């Protein structure tokens, strides 16, 4: 096991990609604090992690609120005594699809808060501890949407691009403290958020898709549409997170790893 005795914090670890990451970290031996907004999905995830023989602590916190983040990190520190790994999974979801001129300020604020500020707050709370120990691993979730431009999706893309820059800036600053900071850019992964997007923006406007579930549409059109014709699962993202936070990647920092089953290959 690559992460025995390590303590990880995973934001948004109750469902979707975050849940896959939690599973993979726990399989490699890490104990985990799972931060979720609702609290319920975190409790359920923590129960399953505990069954694997790891310690798991669900913490209810809205990571767009710095006070709640500080309190959550303190609770994790009080419980585990240290933090080794921070995985920032919370994001806005690519759901605010609309023409630029129809986007009001609140949509920009929502994307900025969920995609960027949430990561800034958790890093600000955890990094002093990492610096003190001269050790730490941070993985920020961005999206291939933060690299490849698409119409009607500016707030999501611009703020996910912000995550990539934030990752590099932090990596540059924290290298001298032996802290690795990297970023993952997934393509389309079937999660509750993506399912809602598929239903709203792909099934409803398409007469041919009438009656299909989000899962049906994903399997029939999205997976075969990728060059590898292979589903990108939350566990695929989780396995890459394990690699990046393990000593196998000790000399990798400031990088963004695309996990897209071959989509957007030409984009660095």
């Amino acid at each position, binding site marked *: 096991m690559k992460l025995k005795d390590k303590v990880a914090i995973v934001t948004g670890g109750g469902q979707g990609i975050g849940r896959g990451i939690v599973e993979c970290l726990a399989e490699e031996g890490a104990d985990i604090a799972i931060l979720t907004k609702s609290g319920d999905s975190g409790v359920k995830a923590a129960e399953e992690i505990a069954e694997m023989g790891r310690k798991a602590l669900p913490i209810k916190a809205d990571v767009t609120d710095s006070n709640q983040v500080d309190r959550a990190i303190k609770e994790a520190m009080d419980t585990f005594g240290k933090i080794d790994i921070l995985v920032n999974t919370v994001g806005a979801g690519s759901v605010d699809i609309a023409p630029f001129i129809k986007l009001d300020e609140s949509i920009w604020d929502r994307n900025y808060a969920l995609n960027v500020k949430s990561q800034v707050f958790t890093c600000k709370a955890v990094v002093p501890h990492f610096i003190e120990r001269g050790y730490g691993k941070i993985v920020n979730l961005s999206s291939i949407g933060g690299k490849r431009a698409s119409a009607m999706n500016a707030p999501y893309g611009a703020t996910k691009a912000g995550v990539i820059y934030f990752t590099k800036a932090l990596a540059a600053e924290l290298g001298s403290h032996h802290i690795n900071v990297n970023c993952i850019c997934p393509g389309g992964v079937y999660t509750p958020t993506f399912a809602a997007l598929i239903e709203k923006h792909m099934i409803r406007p398409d007469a041919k898709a009438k009656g299909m579930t989000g899962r049906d549409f994903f399997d029939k059109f999205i997976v075969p549409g990728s060059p590898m014709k292979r589903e990108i699962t939350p566990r695929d993202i989780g396995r890459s997170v394990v690699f990046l936070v393990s000593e196998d990647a000790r000399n990798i920092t400031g990088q963004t790893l695309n996990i897209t089953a071959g989509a957007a*290959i030409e984009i660095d």
Partner: protein
Amino acid sequence: MKLEGKVAIVTGGGQGIGAGIVRCLAEEGADIAIVDLREETAGEIVKEVEALGRKAIAVHADATDSGQVTEAVRKVVDAFGKIDILVNNVGGGGARIKRTIPKEELTGLRCVDSEEEAWDKIMDLNAKSQFLMCRAVVPHLLKQKDGKIVNIGSRLARQVDISLSIYCTAKAAVIQYTNHLALELAPHGINVNCVCPGDVMTPNIEAAFARVAETNPDSKGKTPEELFLQVAGPRMAFNRIQTPEDMGRATVFLASEDARTITGQALYVDGGQTFL
């Protein structure tokens, strides 16, 4: 173990970064074929792999010669019955090219004053070798509808070093060849990726620094590690030695099922040299 039952070819696996890659693949359970020009060093790495309980062979071949490549791949298939992983590691800067351009024709511009022979040799070693190996190996991967190719690039694929213009150009070609091959092989279940090393402390580099410490008064008494960090450290986020095994572990990741939906990517293992 992530690669049990897999067969991997590593070109230039007898020394340096290639030997580190071989060790890491073998530690994860792969059997290894080293395609290399230097039989003696390749033979030593074969023994190391066998000591780990894996099978290994050394095949003597020049990866820039299509006839020798075809023959080498045939030998590997004869020995192991299949190929799962190809690591194209052969490369280099083409040192010791004889100068033939008359002095009066030199412009003083290093990108222009290169010998044609140097251009051909460096392109062949770094880029053509990967094309020839892929051409010979891909039909075997297609039969299995499965396979992993890892091409070794360099941080210099996207950084500028005027004194190494041909090498940088060849390594940039590696990245584009990786992208194109990845897209074409994606529907066949084959992943193609690239590992781009930063400065690596190989045994040859270590020996070179040891010589510098002996001959250069400014470096007297310094260890190869100290000299490495003096040269490479300011370029890195981490002031840390990089080893061939760092490249090996990244190669294992990309060649394993952990990276099953990663293709067409260049992973920079460089201690933060390229993004700063």
